[in-house]
């Protein structure tokens, strides 16, 4: 590993900014004697993070499962819907408005309804995570399936390719980069969806995700613990996003492979 100074700076600079912000935060809390239920000092947050690490890890694991399953559902159902849309313009024009509706409906507003229908359980959390994260997959994959290079389409037409061949040998592989792109956006949304749903599922004792923990910390005015949970949420989002990115760049290596890649052999 030979990191250049530029790369090193790229890694260190954000930490430096974090240090400055944390210092100012701490000074402000001490200087103005802000009560810890309003704003705990960064040290108190770190302390809470450490003390609650097992609880947070466990809750993160629960939420991660829900978000991941939701994301997988989005990838599967979203791609399926996109394929259907690519094959029938009638289907596309008649259903696309409802897909947009799915995107614009405030998820916070339908989560309580979904809980009534589906119960205080994992399934509901997954359902909300799926609903909130499916749109980028449908939109991106549909456009990927439909925006095929004119020459490539002509190439297939010249060979009298069937509709199915066109779909499996051209459209679907050509849309893979768009699927990855969609999933990158969806990964963050799936985490948000899961946490929001957990707010509503609440402290029924059957379910303990990060969202559940946050509502109970809020009720008890445990601000430091609340912020610690918030940090866990962020970490979770980054984790899932990073995983999708990693998976995506592995898959996309073929699509975007550059000449330099040969040296790996």
């Amino acid at each position: 590993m030979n990191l250049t100074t530029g790369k090193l700076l790229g890694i260190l600079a954000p930490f430096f900014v974090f240090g400055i912000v944390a210092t100012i935060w701490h000074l402000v809390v001490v200087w103005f004697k802000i009560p810890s239920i309003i704003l705990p000092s960064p040290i108190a947050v770190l302390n809470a993070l450490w003390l609650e690490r097992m609880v947070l890890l466990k809750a993160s694991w629960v939420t991660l499962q829900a978000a991941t399953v939701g994301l997988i559902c989005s990838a599967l159902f979203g791609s399926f819907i996109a394929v259907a849309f690519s094959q029938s313009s009638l289907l596309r024009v008649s259903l696309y408005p409802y897909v947009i509706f799915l995107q614009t409906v405030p998820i916070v507003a339908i989560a309580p309804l979904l809980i009534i229908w589906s119960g205080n359980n994992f399934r509901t959390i997954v359902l909300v995570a799926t609903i909130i994260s499916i749109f980028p997959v449908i939109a991106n994959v549909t456009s990927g399936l439909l925006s095929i290079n004119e020459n490539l389409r002509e190439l297939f037409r010249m060979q009298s390719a069937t509709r199915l061949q066109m779909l499996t040998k051209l459209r679907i592989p050509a849309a893979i980069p768009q699927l990855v792109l969609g999933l990158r956006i969806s990964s963050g949304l799936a985490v948000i969806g899961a946490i929001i749903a957990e707010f509503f599922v609440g402290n029924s004792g059957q379910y303990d995700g990060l969202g559940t923990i946050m509502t109970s910390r809020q009720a008890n005015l445990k601000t430091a613990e609340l912020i610690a949970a918030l940090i866990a949420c962020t970490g979770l989002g980054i984790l899932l996003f990073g995983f999708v990115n990693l998976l995506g760049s592995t898959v996309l290596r073929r699509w975007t492979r550059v000449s330099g890649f040969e040296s790996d052999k």
Partner: protein
Amino acid sequence: MQPTLHDSPIISCQGVQLAFGTGAARQNVLNDLQLEVNAGQIVSLLGPSGCGKSTLLRVIAGLIEPDAGSVVVDSESVSTKMPHSLREKMSFVFQEPALLPWRNVLQNVILPTQLRGVHKQKETADFVERLLGLVGFKKSDWRKFPSQLSGGMKMRASIARAMSTRPSILLLDEPFAALDDMLRSKLNDMLLAIAAEQKCTMLFVTHNISEAIYLSQAIAIMSHGRISERMEVPFLFPREAGLRSTGQFAAYYGQVAESLSKGNS
């Protein structure tokens, strides 16, 4: 060589008419166009950008339906709904290599045979192997992906792909326009070698005069949607690279250039 090979037109366009656009913006792209190409001949369609060369090629390929006139290939009428058997006699080489980025060279080259379901036949495999050698691929390059290839190599793969189904007619739409002169003349020789071996009729669209002369038996000069002049190239086959630097070549070049500017004035 069969003596009758050059006598009957394998491609015949009569009174082909095509306009794009609607209302006042409607413009004739092909205008009462006549063209005949004899079997086994290489004919270049020479003309400035926008004269309708590429469109004509697509009409002959049955990718675009003309407004009026007839296109007959191998005594069968061409249309966008022509039978597979007729379509499969032709192959198209696009201006861009139009390779599928997720397939390696070999997989790209066998694509047309795969769409016809004959890619597993021993005969096809042998032929593709010969073709890849003919266009200049070493066996070690077969597994490379398009993004690992230079522009010239991509075009070689694209030509091999077009030839993989043993078409009797190869339609080429300015395939070497993006390449530098050195590479262009190398690929010209490669194309001539393929034509000689496969006895394939070629209709070659270009705006490069020297390339048109070097490659073909006849040059059809195109202007404003019609063939303004047809010139028989006086140089015998096989062509040699040295031909380009001879005085006769230069003199003939002048003649073609003059006809070209006359037709387009």
